[in-house]
């Protein structure tokens, strides 16, 4: 499934991610998942929120002078069993798809782990994931 993700450019300074989290929190927006990648000087926070809140989250962050972008990423529900992730990745790889980055969040009360994948070819990756 394709879902939308918000990416926010963050200067590598104390409290920068806290500002974003507080901004969303004060406006009743819950982060369902996120990851932060960093270089020496800056980082990028990628955030998933409820589908019906994403436009509001995007506009809020933008209105507060952050550089923010919205991109489609592939959402994968991966069974909680050995080899399940390997199978998914092998299929993507066999189709010539490279993954730019990905992150996962496991939920022990569910039979699935949820994985967010940012491939170079989003459409194709989504088809392959759908056929798993």
């Amino acid at each position, binding site marked *: 499934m394709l879902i939308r993700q918000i990416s926010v450019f963050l200067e590598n300074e104390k409290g920068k991610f806290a500002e974003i989290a507080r901004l969303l929190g004060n406006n009743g927006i819950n982060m369902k998942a996120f990851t932060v*990648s960093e270089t020496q000087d800056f980082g990028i926070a990628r955030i998933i929120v409820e589908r019906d809140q994403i436009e509001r989250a995007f506009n809020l962050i933008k209105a507060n002078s952050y550089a923010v972008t919205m991109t489609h990423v592939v959402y994968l529900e991966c069974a909680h069993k050995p080899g399940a992730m390997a199978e998914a990745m092998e299929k993507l790889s066999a189709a010539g798809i490279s993954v730019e980055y990905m992150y996962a969040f496991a939920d022990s009360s569910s039979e699935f782990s949820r994985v967010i994948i940012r491939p170079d070819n989003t459409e194709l990756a989504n088809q392959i994931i759908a056929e798993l």
Partner: protein
Amino acid sequence: MSRDQMRELQSEKLRKIVAHAYNNSPFYKKRFDEHGVHPDDIKSIDDIVKLPFTVKQDLRDNYPFGMMCVPMTDILRLHASSGTTGKPIVVGYTAKDLDNWADAVARCLSAYGLGSNDMVQIAYGYGLFTGGLGAHDGVTKIGGTVIPTSSGNTQKQLQLMQDFGATAVACTPSYALYMAEEIRKQGLDIKNFKLKVGIFGAEPWTEAMRKELEDKLQIRAFDIYGLTEISGPGVGGECECQNGTHLWEDLYYPEIIDPVTLQPVEPGQKGELVFTTLDKWGMPMIRYRTRDLTYLNYDKCECGRTAVRMGKILGRSDDMMIIRGVNVFPSQVESILLEFPEYEPYFLIEVDRVNNTDTFDIQVEVKPEFYTDRINELVRLRQRLTARIQSVIGIQPNIKIVQPGTIERSTGKAKRAIDHRKFE
């Protein structure tokens, strides 16, 4: 030489060089004609105020050889300093010019107490930069021994300096401090070095730095002043009194003007330093505005020299900064940013000195549509800007991408550079 004799010599030389410039350079002929002045109007050195000024932009506009006043076959050497968008400032020297330049450096070296028994390690960069070869020719002129290490490779510098027994070192004062620090770190004993004199220039430095250098390297540290447009290092140098930089005014005639009214100031008053090269034939500079702010002292020095002394450089009448010995204009950064569609044209330069090395940070903003979730794209974009600035300006900046709207937008008087270094 008495001041009167000096003025007579200067007058004679000025008449000749002005006629030479007028008769051999379409640039100077046009400039003089527009200004309504003819070489026949120049009878003595006092008439110099009748002449029009020359500025850095004139050298850029006449790139590469438009300012030369002799056929190129008579030019024996070219030097250049960094310019905007890849166009450097080019200077050319005849055989006589090179000889006069070497002579000027030799006078500095003699004033530092150096002679034919000395061995001088030249850790200024050799190449288009005038520092290395300029100092080199001066040492050769006094019959000293040159160790042409050029800049960099500190480990080797120190090894040779110790093994060869160099008695003097020529480099930027900040690099000398760095070497002093390395000597300490490597556990070397300064007593095993034979250094007695430091020849420091190409960037502003303070009395505090002088004291530190003299203590740590067990030397006497002397200033050498110069600029590419006028010749290079050796336009002036300190003497044993370390009380002002003597200018070799039979070669390079100095004036101080008010940078706003462009009128000469009273002797001793602060203003912008202007030079006329009285004996430089390849590319004479007539009333060249250095943009350096300082003052002149015509009193006879305790060392016995009557040559005028220049005070410390107090600042600039433009926004040029000297970073790691390299001249940097904020406008250079601006024109480079304009080459990149991904960046906003706003920036803030911050310069500081950390561990005796100048830092060169530039804050920039990426245009909103070029932000991305892919960190590698931003890293590459940053890398491209870093490489471009390094290739144009000559030193590597630390590019810091900041959030949109961080950098001050007001155009007119926006502060585009902050220098945190302490020079006094």
